Structure formats: structure tokens, C-alpha cells
């Protein structure tokens, strides 16, 4: 295995970790208005995200940084091609972070309404645009030897819109389960019944996505050549089914873990299909960005491999420790440390 392959795997893991972890933050953000009927409920929802969302978002920064360090040519092409979409993502991520941090600082009605709306809109926009961005990567960008040949509107294909909507839907399901998993009482059960409704739509949406993926992308080519790898999407389907089952049975904890696995395995299935491309080209297959023509030098990859093998396990260890510290279920009456200053 070459280091480029190692970095493709790592690249996939970093993006997947981001979507699994920030996915429930974004979902909780989108559903925040539906779930939190009053101020104390909304405060409890924010408390469920408070200690973890920042650390979750850093997986995005690390995924971006790893793309830059390991595949600079692809980083340059992807980020400049998706300019307008990423600009909106940036605005949305900024608004989301500020809304979560500043909402509790005052209790005046205008203030809380401003940041509540900001949180909901920003979470929705982030989920939708990341979905659409990855839809475009899977489908390929209009690139030739001179670089990107499209416009902002060429990114708005029906397939990209569908992946965007699917991201929104699955993050909503994921977020509702997070809330059901973390909160006690009526808020937790309300989240579970909302998750139940969302999970009615998710299986048909997933089937539609799979059909459209095989029609609009070349992701299935790898599976035709290497059918053994089909175990990844098979596991994805199993994780999907088990989440649906646990949701139906009202087992919030297991449903949430299973939903984490489902999000992860869907991303893995797509990455297996994408390999060895980071971005295929829709104009000329030879102009696609692969892990071979877009990577850093062997020397840099070697150094970055050492760095990643040391740092990533440490990060996982302390983040797991933090999740453990905050494992106790949140009730509406729990002391709100963030407003206790």
C-alpha cells in the first residue's frame, strides 16, 4: 500500500468523523425550533451540544487541513471550484458557532429570537451545502487540463440537490436521536417520536439516493470490479435497518449508536466507490484528481503519516474521555453551568 492510499483512507476517516459528530449538532440545530418549545427546553438542547460541538467542528478543520497537506492540488481545485458554496458554508458555520455561544448571554426577546433563528438557518444551510458539495465530488466536476470549467449554477444539478436534501434529512434523524439519547423527560420522548417520523422517510430517501447515484455517478464501477467491497454498503444497509428497528422500539441509546454507524458507513460506501479519485472529471476522465496526481511529495506524506498516527489516536482518546465525563443525561432542571458565571 502506498502512502497515497493511506492518506486516502485517513482523508475518508476525517470527513466521516466530521459528519458523524457534527451531523448530530447540525441536526439538533435544524430541529431546535420544533423540539424546544420554551426557553428552558431550548437551553437544555444547547446544553447537550455545549461541551462537544466545538471539538466536533475541528474534525472539519482537520479534514480540510489534511486535504491541503496530503492532496494540495485537489484542495486547491475543490475549494476554488466550489467557491460560492463554500463561502455560504463559512458564513453559516460562523453564524452557527456564534449563535450557540452568545444565545444564552442575554434573555431579552429580540436577542434570543435572533440567535435561535440564526442557529436553525445556519445548521440547515451547512447540512444542505455540504451534502450538495459532496454530491458534486461524487458526480465529478467539469474540469479539463486548464482547471474548473463550470459556474456556480453548474453545481446545482438535481443529483447534488438530492444529496443535499439527503444530508439534511439524515442529520435531522441523527440529531433527533442525539437529543433522545441525551435528554430525559418529555423533551427526550418528543425527540424520539420526531425521530420515528423522520425515519419513515429515510429508507425511501436512501433507496432513491442509491438509484440516482448509480445513474449519475461512476461510484458503482469499483464495486463491479471488486464485488467483495460490497460488504461496506451491505453493512451500511444493516446499520440503517438496525437504526430503524431501534427507533421503532423506542431504544434511543442503541438507535443513536446505530445511526452513527449508518452515517459513517454511507460515507465509507461512497469513498470506496470514489477511489482512487478525490474528484473525478465530468469532461475528461484523465483530468480527474486522483490520489496519485494530486498528492504531496512522498517525503511530506511520510512526515504527515507519522504526525497523524501519533495525534489522531490521542485526539480520539481525549474526545472519548470528554464524552464520558458528560455522559449523564440532561434534565430541564440540571444546573446550567454556562449561564452560571
Amino acid at each position, binding site marked *: 500500500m502506498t502512502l497515497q492510499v493511506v492518506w486516502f483512507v485517513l482523508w475518508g476517516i476525517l470527513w466521516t468523523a466530521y459528519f458523524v459528530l457534527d451531523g448530530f449538532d447540525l441536526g439538533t440545530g435544524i430541529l431546535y425550533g420544533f423540539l424546544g418549545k420554551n426557553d428552558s427546553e431550548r437551553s437544555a438542547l444547547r446544553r447537550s451540544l455545549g461541551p462537544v460541538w466545538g471539538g466536533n467542528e*475541528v474534525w472539519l478543520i482537520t479534514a480540510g*487541513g489534511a486535504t491541503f497537506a496530503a492532496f494540495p492540488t485537489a*484542495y486547491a481545485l475543490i475549494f476554488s471550484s466550489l467557491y460560492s458554496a463554500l463561502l455560504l458554508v*463559512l458564513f453559516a458555520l460562523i453564524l452557527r458557532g456564534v449563535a450557540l455561544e452568545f444565545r444564552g448571554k442575554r434573555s431579552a426577546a429580540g436577542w434570543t429570537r435572533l440567535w435561535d433563528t440564526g442557529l436553525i438557518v445556519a445548521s440547515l444551510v451547512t447540512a444542505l451545502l455540504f451534502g450538495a458539495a459532496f454530491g458534486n465530488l461524487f458526480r465529478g466536476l467539469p474540469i479539463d487540463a486548464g482547471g474548473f470549467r463550470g459556474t456556480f449554477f453548474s453545481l446545482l444539478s438535481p443529483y447534488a440537490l438530492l444529496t443535499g436534501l439527503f444530508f439534511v434529512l439524515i442529520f435531522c434523524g441523527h440529531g433527533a436521536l442525539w437529543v433522545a439519547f441525551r435528554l430525559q423527560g418529555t423533551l427526550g420522548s418528543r425527540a424520539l417520536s420526531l425521530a420515528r417520523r423522520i425515519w419513515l422517510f429515510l429508507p425511501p430517501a436512501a433507496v432513491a439516493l442509491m438509484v440516482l447515484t448509480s445513474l449519475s455517478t461512476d461510484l458503482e464501477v469499483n464495486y463491479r470490479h471488486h464485488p467483495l467491497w460490497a460488504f461496506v454498503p451491505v453493512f451500511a444497509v444493516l446499520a440503517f435497518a438496525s437504526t430503524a428497528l431501534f427507533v421503532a422500539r423506542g431504544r434511543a441509546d442503541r438507535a443513536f449508536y446505530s445511526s452513527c454507524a449508518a452515517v459513517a458507513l454511507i460515507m465509507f460506501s461512497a469513498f470506496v466507490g470514489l477511489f482512487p479519485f478525490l474528484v473525478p472529471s465530468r469532461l475528461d476522465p484523465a483530468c480527474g484528481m486522483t490520489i496519485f496526481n494530486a498528492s504531496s511529495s512522498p517525503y511530506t506524506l511520510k512526515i504527515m503519516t507519522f504526525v497523524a498516527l501519533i495525534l489522531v489516536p490521542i485526539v480520539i482518546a481525549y*474526545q472519548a474521555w*470528554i464524552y464520558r465525563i458528560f455522559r449523564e443525561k440532561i434534565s430541564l432542571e440540571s444546573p446550567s453551568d454556562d449561564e452560571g458565571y
Partner: protein
Amino acid sequence: MDVVTLSRLQFAVTAMFHFIFVPLTMGLSLLLAYWETRYVRTGDETYLRMTKFWGNLFLINFALGVVTGITKEFEFGMNWARYSRFAGDIFGAPLAIEAAGAFFLESTFIGLWVFGWNKVSKKTHALAIWLVAGASNLSAFLILLANGWMQKPGGYILRNGRAELTDFGALVFNRYGWLSFFHALFAGCTLSAFFVMGVSAYHLLRKKNPDFFTRSFRTAAGLGLAGSFLLVVSGDQQGLLVTRTQPTKLAALESHWETRRAAPFSLFAWPDSRGEKNAFEWLRIPSGLSLMAYHRADAEVKGLRDFPRDERPPVLPTFLSFRFMVGLGLILVLLSFLGWLRSRRDRLDARPALLKLFLYAIPLPYIAVQLGWIVAEVGRQPWLVFGVLKTADGVSNSITPGMVTTALAGFTVLYGLLAVVDVYLLARFARKGPAEVSR
């Protein structure tokens, strides 16, 4: 305007805005860690109240530092794709290491620190803020290493149409990166000290919580004195390095046109770039520039006229920023000394004039750090990677002036609103005082 100018403006706006929050994070996190450790060691509740009161202000600032930092990582790929492709083999590494090694620590442990008061032991809680402080400063170090390579590229070879890393050691031990890190660290300490002294002065003027704010003032004054003194020392060291590695920047800093030995230093001048001379010079110190740049009175300093016109940085902004930055730096040293002396000997609340001075001094270090970035980055022009890649050759091909104008307008409006919210919240919580905020 063209894509290059617009992208430079966008980068300048987003970087300078981001750097409003960075230095306070760097310095105040260290103060918080010190106070919380004192609380754990001594059990003195005032230290706990200090940690919480200043911690609350820290968090408002920290949130904005984090969200505006994401923009920076995306911008290299979005606006500077040709640069990213050219230098990613080298430049990407410190950025990725920053995210995985520092930013993760910072963001994860700030969560524990904010929400974990009743969840973990006092010692673990204090450890969390030490990790945040260490990681914030490590983060700045790695970013400045990346910047250091752009300023003083080394350890690479031009191959495959790009710069490829050949010596990781040269990247990690880049002298420019280390010196600007220390300069930024001491700037962070100084700025944070003035922030704490200024807010304390506000309360001491109103005779509220005199004990609490005198103690806060005192700790900050010590940090400010050490910080501002080292700030000047590190700045001088940077000057020596710039002399050796970026002669165009040095000449622009001094608006020095003619190559000569025993070059004089003019306290103030007005550069005339078209005429390649100074319109006027005021208060010339013989051999002053030679002494500053080389620490030798008869050293020869190369003037701007000896460099091709298309390799000279814009002289006026570089020169003025440098003059005002250094001026402010010296004022900060004097003020720190005064604050340190008075807070040691006297009762501060009996000295309203001094307190007012410190209240109104809060913006000074903020202005100085912004000027510092203008000096470093405008002074590097027209190069993106000094001597290797011109700024105009680093910009993305696929973006249009319309796209970048939209981005620039969007950032300006959004950041403007965030600035209003930031100042409003900081002022509100700073005024509240500790009594109402502690439990």
C-alpha cells in the same frame, strides 16, 4: 478591481479581524490558568472569582476567534488556489498539524472548562485551562511557522512545477517563524495585560470591588511589564533578521531610498514613491538606521532605488505602520512600567488620573498588533513567497471579480455585525463586575 486586489483585500479584512481575538486568547488564557492554579493551591475564593469573571470575558472573545479562524483555512484554497497548489506540499503540513495537534485540544478542553465545573476535580479543571492556554499558543506557533516559510522560504526544492519539501527541520526551525511567534506571544501578553488593567481601572474608578480589581491589576501589570519589554526585544531581533533576509522590506520600513554606509534614521518622513525619495525628513539621527538594522554604526544599508520597481513593497503604508507600531510599543513599555510601579507601591483607587489613563489605553495594543501585521504582510509584497512566488501568481484562476466582491462585501458586513456584538457583550459583562457573576 481585479481578482488579485480583491482577494488581497478579502484576506486582509478576514485576517485582521481574526487577529482582534487571537492575542487576547493567547495572553488571557495564561492569566486564567495562573489564577485558577492559585485558587487550587491556596483555596482563596478571590482567585476563583477572578477566574470566573475574566473567564467570562475570555469566552466571548474566544468564540469569535474560533469562528473567524475557519475562514482562514478555507481562503487559501478558495482565493489562492495557485499558491495552494504551488506550496501545499510544504505549507499544508503546519496547518494540518495545527488542526490535529492544537486546535483539537483547545476546542475540546474549552468545552470541559466551561461545562465541567461540577463534573471533574478542581485540579483536572485547572488542567483544562492550562491545556487551552498551551494549545492556543501552540496553534499560533504553527500558523506563524507556516507564515515564516512564506517570509523566509527554506528547506525546499522547485520540482514538478511546485515547491516540494526536502527538509522538515528547516520548516520547523525557521527563524522567521519562531521570532514572529515570540513577538506575537509577547504582544498577546501585553494586549491582555492592558485589557485586564483597563477593565480593572474602570471599576477602581467607581470604587467597586477594590480588592478584587487591585489584585487583577497587579497580576496584569507584572505580565504587561515583562510582555512589553520582551516585545521590544523580539521586535529588534526580527528587525535584524529582516535586514538579512528581506532587504526590500527593511528599506520600505524606513523609507530608505539611497544605498549608503552609516545610514541615518529619520524619526518621521513622508515617502514619495514616484520621485524615489522622501518629500521631507524630520529629526535625523546620524547612523541611526545602520545601528538599528545591523547594530553597527558604519554598516551599509541598501536603499529602495537599488531594487527593481516591481520588487518594491508599497512604501507609504509599510513605513507609516512601522513608525506607529514602534511608537505605540514604546508607549506601552512606559505605561506598563508606570502601572507596575504604582500598583506595587500605592493604593490604585487613590490615583484616578492613572486609572483613566489605563482605561483609555485599552485600544492601543489592539491598534499596534494590526499595524504589526500590515508591516509583516504589506512589507513582503509584491511577493507571496518571498523571492519565489509573486502574489499576483498565487490567486485562483476560476474565480471572478464578481465572486470575490460578493465575498468581500459579505465578510465586511458579517464581521462588522460581529464586531458590534463583541464590543456590546464585552462591555456589558466587563461593567457588571464580579460580585454579580460569581456563585
